[in-house]
C-alpha cells in the first residue's frame, strides 16, 4: 500500500526519476557500454582466467540473444581468437585453413591459416559461470519461443547453477508450455539427486509423461539405480509411459487413416453422384479433380498478395469451372450414351486423355507449385507425443462439410428430389413434368463440380500435375463400389474405412503392399457382396 500512496503524494518526483532512469539506459549502450563489450571481447582471449571471467560477466549483461550464441560457442570450445586483433571468431574448415565468421554479428571475415587463430580455453569455474550466464540470458528473454528453446536445451541439466536459474524463471514464467518444460527439467534433475526419496518423487512425477526426455532418463536410471524401491517405481513409470505412447501412436495412426480416408471420400464423392445416381462411368473424373487443382494454381497466380485467402476464392472457382466442364461433357458426349455404361467408360476415358494433354500443352507438362496458406501449415500439438497437422485436419473437416452439403442438396432441395426421381424411374419422372435432360446435365455438373472442389483440397496435400487425376480414378471407383453404388453414406463409410485400413497395415506391410492388400480385399469382398457394403434395394437394383 505504501508505495502507491507515496507515488500519489509525489507524482512529479517519481515521474522525473523514471525519465532519468530511461535516459541513462538509452545513452549507456550507445557510448560506454558498447566500448566495454568490445573491450571484453578482446579480454576473452587473455591468459588469465580472472580477466576472462570478468569479460564474460560484461558480455552477459543485457539480453542480446547473440551474446548467448557467443557464450554457448565458448562453452562448447568452438570459440577462437584471431591473432592479429584478438577478435573472437567462429571457424569452419576451409581448403586453405579456416574460414572465419565474427562471433557476435556473424559477418564473414575471410580465410586464414590454421596458425592465425587460437582456441579460447576455459576452466571449470568458467564453465559454471557460462552456464549461469547462458541460462539467465536465454531464459529471461522476452520472446516465449526463445525461452521455450532454452528450456528444451537445458532439459535435465543437473548443474546446480542451471537448476537455480530454472527455478528462478519458473517463479515468474507465464507461458504454460515453457513452464511444462521447466518443471520437467527440474524433475529430471532431481532424478540424479543423492537422496533416494527425492529420486522416488521424481520417478513418480515422471510416470506417464509423454516427453521423450522423460522416457530416456528413466531408461537410463533403470540401468544404474541402486535403490530397489526407486528401481521398481521407475519400471512402473516406464511401463505407464509405454502404455500411453502406444495409445498415442494408435491415435496418430487413426488420424492418418481418417485423413487418407477423407481424401478418398473427397475424390470419390463426385463419382458417387455421376456413377451412383446416374449410372455413368466417368473415367474423366480424375481429370476434373486435376482441373480443380489447376484452378487453385491459377487463382493463386492471379492474386499473389493474398495467399491466405486464395483457397476461399479457389473453392467456388473450381466448382464452377469443373461443373461447367462437366455440363459440357454431358451435353456433347454422355447424353448420347445413357443406358450403355461400358460405352460411357470408353468415351469419358477419351475425354480424360484430351483434358490431360490440354493441360500439358497450355500450362506445362511439369508439376506446378500450389502453395499452402499460412493457416494450413503447422500442427495442432495435442501432447508431446501427438501432433495433428493442420492441413490434414482441415481437409478432414472439409471432406465432411462437402459430404453434408451434398447430402442436403440431394435430400432437401428440389433439384435433389428431381435427381432421385430421374434415377429411380426416368419415364415416370418425365411424365410428372421433370425435365430429365436438364436434370441429367445439372446432376453431372454437380458431380463434376464436387470433383473440382476435391481438387482444391488435394492440391494442398499432393503434387499438382497433368497426371494427378489418374492416381485417384481407380481408388475412387474402389470406394464407390465398396460402399455400394448410389449411396452417399456408403461412400463415406467406405472411404474412411479403406483409409484407416490402409494406414493400419502400413507399419508392418509398407505403403505399397498395404495398398495392394486393400485392393485384393476389395476384389474378394465384391465376390461376397457384389453390390457393396450398402446395396440399393428394390427393383432398380436388378441391373
Amino acid at each position, binding site marked *: 500500500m505504501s508505495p502507491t500512496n507515496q507515488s500519489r503524494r509525489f507524482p512529479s518526483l517519481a515521474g522525473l526519476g523514471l525519465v532519468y532512469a530511461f535516459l541513462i539506459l538509452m545513452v549507456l549502450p550507445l557510448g560506454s557500454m558498447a566500448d566495454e563489450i568490445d573491450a571484453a571481447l578482446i579480454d576473452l582471449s587473455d591468459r588469465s582466467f580472472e580477466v576472462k571471467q570478468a569479460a564474460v560477466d560484461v558480455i552477459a549483461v543485457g539480453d542480446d540473444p547473440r551474446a548467448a550464441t557467443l557464450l554457448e560457442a565458448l562453452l562448447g570450445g568452438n570459440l577462437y581468437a584471431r591473432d592479429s586483433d584478438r577478435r573472437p571468431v567462429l571457424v569452419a574448415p576451409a581448403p586453405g585453413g579456416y574460414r572465419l565468421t565474427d562471433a557476435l554479428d556473424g559477418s564473414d571475415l575471410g580465410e586464414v591459416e590454421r596458425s592465425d587463430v587460437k582456441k579460447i580455453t576455459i576452466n571449470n569455474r568458467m564453465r559454471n559461470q557460462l552456464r549461469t550466464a547462458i541460462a539467465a540470458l536465454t531464459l529471461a528473454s522476452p520472446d516465449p519461443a526463445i525461452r521455450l528453446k532454452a528450456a528444451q536445451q537445458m532439459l535435465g541439466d543437473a548443474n546446480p547453477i542451471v537448476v537455480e536459474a530454472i527455478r528462478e524463471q519458473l517463479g515468474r514464467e507465464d507461458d504454460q508450455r515453457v513452464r511444462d518444460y521447466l518443471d520437467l527439467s527440474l524433475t529430471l534433475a532431481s532424478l540424479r539427486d543423492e537422496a533416494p526419496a527425492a529420486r522416488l518423487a521424481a520417478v513418480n512425477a515422471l510416470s506417464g509423461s509423454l516427453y521423450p526426455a522423460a522416457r530416456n532418463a528413466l531408461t537410463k536410471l533403470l540401468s544404474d539405480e541402486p535403490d530397489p524401491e526407486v528401481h521398481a517405481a521407475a519400471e512402473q513409470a516406464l511401463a505407464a509411459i509405454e502404455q500411453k505412447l502406444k495409445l498415442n501412436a494408435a491415435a496418430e495412426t487413426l488420424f492418418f487413416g481418417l485423413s487418407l480416408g477423407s481424401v478418398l471420400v473427397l475424390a470419390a464423392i463426385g463419382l458417387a453422384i455421376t456413377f451412383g445416381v446416374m449410372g455413368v*462411368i466417368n*473415367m474423366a473424373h480424375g481429370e476434373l479433380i486435376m482441373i480443380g487443382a489447376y484452378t487453385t494454381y491459377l487463382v493463386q497466380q492471379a492474386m499473389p498478395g493474398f495467399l491466405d485467402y486464395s483457397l476461399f476464392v479457389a473453392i467456388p472457382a473450381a466448382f464452377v469451372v469443373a461443373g461447367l466442364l462437366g455440363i459440357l461433357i454431358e451435353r456433347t*458426349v454422355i447424353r*448420347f*450414351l445413357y443406358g450403355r*455404361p*461400358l*460405352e*460411357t*467408360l*470408353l*468415351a469419358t*476415358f*477419351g*475425354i*480424360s*486423355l*484430351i483434358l*490431360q*494433354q*490440354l493441360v*500439358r*500443352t497450355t500450362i506445362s507438362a511439369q508439376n506446378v507449385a500450389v502453395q499452402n496458406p499460412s493457416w494450413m501449415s503447422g500442427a495442432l500439438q495435442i501432447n508431446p507425443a501427438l501432433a495433428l497437422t493442420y492441413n490434414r485436419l482441415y481437409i478432414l473437416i472439409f471432406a465432411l462439410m462437402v459430404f453434408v452439403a451434398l447430402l442436403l442438396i440431394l435430400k432437401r432441395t428440389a433439384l435433389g428430389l428431381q435427381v432421385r426421381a430421374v434415377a429411380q424411374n426416368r419415364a415416370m419422372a418425365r411424365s410428372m413434368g421433370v425435365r430429365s435432360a436438364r436434370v441429367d446435365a445439372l446432376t453431372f455438373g454437380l458431380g463434376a463440380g464436387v470433383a473440382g472442389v476435391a481438387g482444391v483440397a488435394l492440391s494442398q496435400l499432393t503434387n499438382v500435375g497433368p497426371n494427378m487425376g*489418374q492416381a485417384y480414378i*481407380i481408388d475412387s*471407383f*474402389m470406394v464407390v*463400389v465398396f460402399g455400394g453404388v448410389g449411396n452417399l453414406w456408403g461412400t463415406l463409410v467406405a472411404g474412411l474405412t479403406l483409409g484407416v485400413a490402409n494406414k493400419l497395415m502400413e507399419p508392418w506391410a509398407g505403403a*505399397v*503392399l498395404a*495398398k*495392394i492388400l486393400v*485392393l*485384393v480385399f*476389395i*476384389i*474378394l469382398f*465384391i*465376390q*461376397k457382396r*457384389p453390390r457393396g457394403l450398402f446395396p440399393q434395394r428394390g427393383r432398380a437394383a436388378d*441391373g
Partner: protein
Amino acid sequence: MGVASVMRGDKGGQAMLAVLLVVAVVVPILNLVVPESSPWHVSTYTVTLLGKYLTYALLAVAVDLVWGYLGILSLGHAAFFGLGGYAMGMYLMRQIGDRGVYGHPVLPDFMVFLNWSELPWFWQGFDLFWFAALMAILVPGTLAFVFGYLAFRSRVTGVYLSIMTQALTYALMLAFFRNEMGFGGNNGLTDFKDILGFDLKSDATRIGLFLASAGALALGYLACRWIVTSRLGRVAVAIRDAEARTRFIGYRVDRVKLAIFTFSAMLAGVAGALYVPQVGIINPGEFSPLNSIELVIWVAIGGRATLYGAVIGAILVNYGKTYFTGAFPEAWLFALGALFVIVTLFLPKGIAGLVGMIRTWRRSRSPAGSAAEAAP
C-alpha cells in the same frame, strides 16, 4: 473340324489371314534378300515393329473374344499380357548367364545389386525354354481362372467386373514395382542377349520372331473362330445378349464364362511372351490400367465382335501411335482421346461395321436393293 469349316462365312477373316500370309512371306524376303540400297528393302527395325503389332493384334483378338462374344469388358487384359511377358523375360534373363554387368553366373544383375545371395524359388526352372513358355500360358491362365471362378460364381457383372479387372491389373502393377518381389522392380527385366541360343540382335532372329508372331496370330485367330462357331460360342453370345435368360434355360453361365475368359487370358499371355523378346524389355508399366483400356479401344475401333476387326484395329491404332508420337508427339493423346469419343459415338461397330454401313447405304439408294430388302 477343318480350317475351312471354321472360316466359312468369315469373309473379313479370310482376307485378313490371306494378307497375313502374304506379309509373312514377302517381308522376310524384302528384308533378307533385297539389298539395303533398294527402295524395296524392309529394314530390320520395321520387321520388329511389324512383329510387335502382330502380338498386339493377338492380344486384341483375345480381348474381342471376351468383350465381343461374351460381353465381359475386361480392363485387365494387359495384366495377362504382362504376366506372359514376364515369364518370357525371366527366361531371357537367365539366358544372359555370366554376361551381365556384375558377371554373376546365375543371378541376374538386379539381384546382385540388391545383395541377394541365391535365386528365389519362383525363378527356378526359368532357364529352360519349355518351362518358361509353359508358364507364359499357365500363369495368366491360372490367375484368370481363380479370378473368374470367384467373380462369375458370385455373378459380378458389367461395370463392376470391369472395375474389378482394373483393380487386379493395378494391384499387379504396384506389386511388380516393388523391388522385394524379385522381378526387377521399377526397371523390369532388360538387357537380353539371346533366345534359344540365337542372338536377339541378329536379323535372322528378328525374322524368326516376326514369323512366330504371325503364326501365333493365325493360330490364335483360328482357335477363336473355332470357339465362336462352336456350340460354346453360341451360348456365349446368348450370355452376352441375355445372361439371366440363358441361365434360366439351364446353361451353366459361370462355367462358360470361366472357360472362355481363361482361354482368352492364355492367349494374351502368349502375345506377351512373343512381345518381350522383340521389344527387349518388360517392366511394370505394362500392367498400367491405361494399357488395358487402350487395347479395348483397338477392338472398338476395329469392330467389336468381329475377330478380324480386332486385328485391323490393333494394327491401325498402333501404326497411328508410332507415326504420331514421331511426327507430332503433342497431338497423339488428342488423337487417341478423340478416337475414343468418335468411335463410341458414331462408329459403334468400328471399321468392320463401316463396310457394312456403306453397303446398306448403297443398297438403299439402288431401287432393286431397296425392293429386295423390303421383300422379306
